[in-house]
């Protein structure tokens, strides 16, 4: 039988060990990142199954929107690192336009992401239209920050991403040396992402 003091020590030790393990597992999970949608980088860096239904998030590249027959529309989605062609046949949300962040649901078919649902992801900036016009090329518009790669954490795909020519730089002008993710952590993604600006 343990003494009262020993019992208390054992209880505190159990609490500390349990919470420490919680923190370890939690942080490991966060380093790997969990998400509602994937970015083009995630999908290009992974062998995604053919019939896998995914959500793909990114910015509609400026100059990439081509309207086809009826409601069909083709455009390119980019996360400031890599980009993917998207095809969609249906009604677009009001906010859909070039430079807008969107989340599409669909499957990869022969290198094209065929979407059956497109949702617009508006940013957290609110301003009157006149002000927005004067800020057109300044910071704070169409940030890549909301589109952080889930797999960009590991160093290997990141170096590929930076050297990849699949991200057309002309449309995604970023301030010097800030393309790509500085760190694996979420904070790094946000800070770096804020500097990458797409002029519309």
């Amino acid at each position, binding site marked *: *039988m343990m003494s009262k003091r020993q019992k208390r020590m054992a209880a505190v030790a159990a609490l500390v060990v349990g919470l420490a393990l919680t923190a370890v*597992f939690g942080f490991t999970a966060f380093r790997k990142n969990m998400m509602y949608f994937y970015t083009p980088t995630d999908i290009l860096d992974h062998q995604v199954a053919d019939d896998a239904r*995914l959500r793909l998030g990114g910015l509609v590249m400026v100059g990439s929107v081509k309207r086809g027959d009826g409601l069909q529309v083709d455009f390119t989605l980019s996360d400031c690192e890599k980009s993917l062609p998207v095809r969609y046949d249906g009604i677009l949300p009001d906010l859909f336009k070039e430079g807008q962040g969107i989340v599409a649901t669909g499957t990869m078919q022969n290198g094209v992401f065929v979407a059956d649902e497109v949702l617009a992801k508006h940013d957290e900036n609110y301003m009157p239209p006149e002000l927005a016009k004067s800020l057109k090329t300044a910071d704070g518009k169409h940030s890549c920050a909301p589109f952080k790669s889930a797999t960009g954490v590991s160093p290997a795909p990141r170096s590929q991403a930076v050297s990849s020519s699949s991200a057309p730089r002309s449309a995604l002008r970023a301030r010097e040396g800030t393309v790509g993710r500085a760190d694996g952590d979420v904070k790094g993604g946000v800070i770096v992402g804020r500097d990458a600006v797409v002029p519309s």
Partner: protein
Amino acid sequence: MSALVALFARELKLAARARTEWLMPPLFFVIVVTLFGFGVRPNDPQLAAFAPAILWVGALLAALLSLERLYRSDQEDGTLEQLLVSPTSLTFAVFIKSLAHWLLSGLPLVLLAAPLAAMLGFPSALLTPLVVGLALGTPCLSFIGGFVAALTVGLPRGGALLPVLVLPLIVPVVIFGAGAVRASGQGLDASAPLYFLAAILMFTLTVLPWLAAAALRNAFE
């Protein structure tokens, strides 16, 4: 320590005597899954797509079945009051009881998941994230459910309230558990949601027995 071993042995012995009691959850699980199989057209590929959700929800609902009895039978025969006044730590007793609940009604579900998954036309490559996820997720339910069962132990309508209180608390378990299977089905990394489940499990193991013990003391004041 020996008192806790005795408690654990008692739980298992009682379960062995009341066989219908602990056979119910696995049976329920099998029935839910087969009903889904009957409910759709033969060899529907959609069924395989929904399999992670069906298996996860079925397992959690099955484990929920036996939760209400966790403290109720002890309350009826007076064992619970003895535990409250005995020198044995109530927190440890709660821990042991929740662990016994998992062994008796959680673990069989984990073991059943693989054959049931095969019945749903579930790709065998995805069995690992499914079974690992269930192995991490079902004890979470035993501990979260044990806490809620302790909260509602003295209540006449506790049986109806229990699932209502448990379900929001286990939403993350379902999300990460089914998410792990889905992610690996899409060729993406399944380890992040599994690590999350491990974190939730560690947290529930550490914190909830304390709070469940407080709830039991509150119910008997």
